[in-house]
């Protein structure tokens, strides 16, 4: 297990380094010179000496690998450059949006996983029956509906036609339930189709193992078989998928936050992209990437803790007779 842990952590670190290389390449590709890319219009207001200092700080005269090291150490120190739009440090702009996005993501994630667990399990247990087929057809339908369009239609129905839920903003704060419902529901529903099918297939697979037959033959009650064997056996892969679904929900939040004017990270990302506010956009990409990598790492460790076969040491301790 210790070896597995070490390997997984090293792997994640490697992925993170690759990601930072991509972001660094991104800076190199931005039209204009990197100093301008970091400071934008602010650069015009600075003196020549300041500009030279920035240029030196960024190490623009150095070879590219050294520049990368410079840049990486700046990023690690939280120095992400200034927003072109407001001139504030990019990290401050980003941090302001974290709470609303965290609340929205939590709410939609809980809804989505809840739906996937409930419909996935119930339809796996009635495999190939009418209920199963209805659930599967409905989840394909959910997969087909574009999230932004689902958002617009829910808005049309609940906010405009019925007038029961607000269509934009977050009211008194990120915890205003009435404002939270629609955006959270849209993110959850637009990805629920895929996860219901995924969960259903995993539950179906884990409810076909030969050991379940053995348990039935030994008089273990059905309810116990479901709770103590079918669920835990499917749990490990599902935890991994749940971890991975966070990246998906985060992507969904870009669209949904924009539609519902939710002042979160996703809306900020789009605003920065449209305004070519590169420091903020890059900061958001880096931050969400690091976050997703961390969550995936935790999910895979949790899965390995639950399922001994995933620890990759199956051959050890085999004792012959």
């Amino acid at each position, binding site marked *: 297990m210790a*070896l597995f842990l070490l390997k997984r952590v090293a792997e994640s670190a490697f992925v993170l380094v690759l990601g930072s290389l991509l972001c660094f390449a991104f800076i190199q590709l931005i039209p204009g010179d990197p100093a301008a890319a970091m400071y934008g219009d602010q650069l015009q207001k600075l003196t020549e000496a300041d500009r030279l200092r920035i240029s030196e700080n960024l190490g623009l005269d150095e070879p590219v690998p050294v520049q990368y090291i410079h840049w990486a150490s700046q990023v690690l120190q939280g120095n992400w450059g200034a927003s072109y739009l407001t001139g504030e440090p990019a990290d401050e702009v980003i941090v302001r949006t974290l709470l609303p996005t965290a609340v929205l993501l939590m709410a939609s994630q809980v809804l989505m996983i809840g739906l996937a667990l409930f419909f996935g399990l119930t339809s796996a247990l009635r495999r190939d029956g009418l209920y199963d087929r209805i659930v599967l057809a409905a989840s394909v339908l959910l997969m087909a509906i574009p999230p932004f369009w689902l958002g617009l239609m829910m808005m049309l129905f609940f906010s405009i036609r019925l007038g029961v839920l607000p269509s934009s903003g977050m009211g008194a704060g990120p915890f205003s339930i009435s404002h939270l419902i629609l955006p959270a529901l849209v993110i959850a529903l637009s990805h629920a189709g895929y996860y219901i099918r995924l969960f259903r297939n995993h539950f179906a697979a884990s409810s076909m*193992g*030969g*050991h379940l*037959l*053995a*348990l*039935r*033959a*030994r*008089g*273990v*009650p059905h309810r*116990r078989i479901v709770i*103590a*064997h079918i669920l*835990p*056996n499917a749990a*490990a892969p599902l935890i991994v998928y749940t971890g991975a679904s966070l990246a998906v929900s985060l992507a969904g939040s870009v669209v949904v936050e924009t539609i519902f004017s939710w002042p979160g990270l996703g809306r900020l990302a789009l605003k920065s992209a449209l305004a070519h506010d590169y420091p903020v956009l890059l900061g958001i990409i880096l931050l969400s990437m690091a976050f997703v990598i961390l969550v995936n790492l935790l999910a895979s460790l949790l899965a390995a803790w*639950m*399922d*001994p*076969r995933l620890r990759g*040491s*199956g*051959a*050890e*301790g*085999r*004792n*012959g*007779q």
Partner: protein
Amino acid sequence: MAILELDRLTVAGDRGDIITGLTFSIDEGETAVMIGGSGSGKSMTARAVLGILPDGLRASGDVRFHGESVFHMPTERRRTYLGRGTGIVFQDSFGTFDPIRTIRQHFTELFSVHLGLKGKDADRRALYWIGRAGILDPVRVAAAYPHELSGGMRQRIQIALAASLEPELLIADEPTTALDLNIQDAILELLKEWKKETGGTLLLITHDLGVAREMADRMLVMDNGRLVEDGPARQLFTAPRSRAAMQLTDDWRTVGGAPPADKAASPSHLLDVSGLSMSYRTGGLFKKREVRALDEVSLSIGSGEIVGLIGESGGGKSTLARLLAGIEPARAGAISWHGTRNWPDAVQWVHQDPAASFNPGWTAGRLVAEGLEYRGTRRTERERTARHLLSEVGLPSETAQQYPGELSGGMNQRLALARTLAVSAELVVLDEPFASLDMSTQAKMIRLIRSLRDREGTAFLFITHDIRAAFALCSRIYVIRQGQIEDHGSPAELAASENPYTKSLLEHVPGRGVDLCNNGGGVL
């Protein structure tokens, strides 16, 4: 007093009956053996008795346990019947254990469900039963996961699991199939011990007449979903009444019998192996170990000869097969073919799971001529050869259009043999060809291999853990143990061998030493 009665039990599926009108009863304290080939309905009977039929199958008629109808038991009563009335031991596979639970948890779950026993008490009881199954370090095994145990260990645990609730009737469904002979023997001993100590009733299901002969008070012969013979064990051997029973004893004699004497021992050497060694590196990041798989192995095979190579799993049999087939290069030693060093295509290899050695997307007709396809033979020519070879190995011509997934294990074996004949193999290495075949199919394969040798002059190296089959088929046999050739000789010579390892192999043959039939058994 009957403990289990079946009354016109019929199991029907969409495509007709699987079991038809099964009526018999088992008395308390008896050991009944149900015997029959693949698809004869044996396992389905066990599943019907336990009420765990696959979806889509319906049972009619009645099963009574101590006179009480099993099909009409209320849920609670039924649970008691399953846990404490009966115990079940399945054929060994990982599949019968929950892969993410430790062995201890498998026991404690049953204790909690059936006895209301929890915590320390349940743990203690689990350790006690693991120890009772003849496991020397119960504490370590209790903490292990199923995939960390060997097949023999898992079978011991299965028996312990079943016995730990002290059932009156133990049902063992092919408990020894696919295990090494010495482990089979140990498992059968364990079952006998259980019976002796508890006085319980045993229903043993097997396709192996040797196992049956060793255990049975009474034999139930199944054929095609029907019970065709029911009587004392001895009667099956001395006076079989049904055709299926006669076929069974006949097959038994083929599998357990001696080979017909070779027409003049062929002195022309086909293959000579001398000083062959092989080792593998295993282990993780820090500790690398060299494992010697083969150590200075020397053997020879003459043309048209059937030579056996026997030994237990892990002894180096499969490694040798791979080296001879040219799949891996050896570390040291020489293999010479017709006295030269040229590596021949004429050595071919039949995998122990032949279905796996076929591209599942190809038809049997294409597969037979696979080697010719690679050699650029024309299509019409290939099809002609395929037709000829299919009939040569006794497969109907319509097989050519079927996919390997649609064929039975025995048919796939034949297909694999035909494929090697297509490239004019002079020596075919058969790697555990009988591991997943039932006894009658084994007997048919033995006859086929002999006739191919006679007609085509092909030599075979027959690699197996089943000493009986080797005795029935081979003119000479090598015994391999821990990578070294331990003993060598004709079946008759080996039967009289003083070598302790050969002796111990012979002792573990199921059914040996039970004097039920005087005309079976050949050398054994």
